[in-house]
């Protein structure tokens, strides 16, 4: 049956993350929060991040509704960036974005993504790329907005 092709998208690890998402909870007193919406389907991700004084992500949590792909992507993203610095996490977001768009990327960068690298299969499902990138987009905006706030504070 042609649904066997679905296996390339819905790998076991993706379904596991969707069924039992990691870090799916709100943080109290998060240093940065960001809410993003996928306007095509109405899916929402609220992302909470704790950044310490060294710009290391010390805690991360997300809430919201979404499909299997967006939920598992948020779970895998949270796993991957926890303990990373802001710059490392932003680089990972760029790698992830390049990967799902089918652009070239270093294997070493890809390894950094951990489980999230499995979503490279989304290239064959262009309609679903936004589902996969929603949480990474939230991460990027959260980190850049925290930067913005800092520079605003300094000014």
């Amino acid at each position, binding site marked *: *049956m*042609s*649904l066997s*092709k*679905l296996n390339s*998208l*819905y790998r076991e690890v993706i*379904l596991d993350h*969707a*069924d039992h998402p990691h870090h799916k909870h709100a943080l109290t007193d998060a240093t940065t929060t960001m809410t993003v919406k996928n306007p*095509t*389907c*109405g*899916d*929402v991700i609220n992302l909470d991040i704790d950044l310490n004084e060294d710009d290391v992500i010390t805690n991360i949590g997300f809430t919201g*509704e*979404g*499909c*299997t*792909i967006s939920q598992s992507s948020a779970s895998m993203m949270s796993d991957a960036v926890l303990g990373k610095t802001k710059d490392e996490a932003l680089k990972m977001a760029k790698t992830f974005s390049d990967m799902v768009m089918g652009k070239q990327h270093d294997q070493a960068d890809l390894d950094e993504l951990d489980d999230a690298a499995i979503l490279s299969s989304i290239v064959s*499902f262009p*309609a*679903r790329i936004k*589902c996969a990138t929603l949480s990474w987009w939230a991460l990027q905006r959260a980190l850049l907005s925290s930067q913005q706030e800092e520079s605003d504070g300094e000014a």
Partner: protein
Amino acid sequence: MKTDISDLRGDFPILDQLVNDEPLTYLDNAATAQKPNQVVAALTHFYQTDNANVHRGVHTLAERATAAYEDARHKVTHFIKAAEPAEVIFTKGATDSLNLVASTYGEANIEAGDEIVISIMEHHSNLIPWQQLALRKHATLKYIELTPTGELDMGDAETKITDKTKIVAVAHASNVMGTVNPIAALTKMAHQHGAIMVCDGAQAVPHMPVDVQALNVDFYAFSGHKMMAPTGIGVLYGKRDLLAAMPPYQFGGEMINFVHRYESTWNELPWKFEAGTQNIAGAVGLGAAIDYLENLGMSNVQAHEQQLVNSLLPQLTADHQIEVYGPHDPARHTGVIAFNIKGLHPHDVATALDMEGVAVRAGHHCAQPLMETLGLVATVRTSLYIYNTQDDVDRLIHALNETKEFFSHELIKAE
């Protein structure tokens, strides 16, 4: 002689292809319909033999193009039973038609404190123009709510439409709930209170006989592309006295009578509302689509879709893992059916169905206030048209079963 409606697929070569190694099952007709060879041929013929700008030249091609364009207007007039071609304005589509009414009639007639009444099942195209008009004019926007079975609550309509109401705007057929609204009754109610009735017919005109004079609506909007015409052509029907009193929508060529340095006068109806070079080929294509539908007979079109709904809807409602939105009675349902597989996100379902060659829509269907009211983020939507067959229904049911099986781990939280 009527064409046999059970055997139209030869007219639609696009349907004869494999998608993801499976035969294409196109069930996204509420988004847009496929175009038969006859419509494509009419476009080709126009561009290859008659193309010129209309109403402007005295040369032969200009005359032919003008005749073809105005002939299409006559076909529309006859098709929706308008009183005269002057009441049929070509637009880009239903959205453009509804914006035209809001920006001209609405702008000229709505004042602070007036009320505009729409329904909660409106597509964004028949919602935002009124919402924004109400905001601009400090008018009040009111919503007619739904009954528990997902139909328009006419009791609520009676309380919402008052002597303060100036405009009532409601869809003829819902693009989500699959219901047909009692437009004639609503129009009567609107008129009793001195309001005008605007009807969004985008999901009705392609699927059922429509008689704008019998409905007695003041304005009626629809799109060509959902009835097998090209994209970018649509219609606004309006009663002559209202259209005549309305200010123009856009200014430019074709819509003028005389232009002086500091003032201008406007062309006759309907051209007053057709500024600039129009979608001439699109209108010709719409005429060809109307010919195609009239050859089948709109009652036959409706009966064909009803037959498929009678097979499909009970299979969906009987499945305890599937939740169907809108009425469950097939007799009260159009070919638009919104549903979800419990515990599965509609995007995941739509991707799985696509792998089986089945094209459906997943999302909020440009009806976010309705989704919010139903407590939903999104749904799957399947929608039928004349070229769909019992095979298509069977393939959808089969693909849904495969989808449930594929995701049959803890994701399914049925019961």
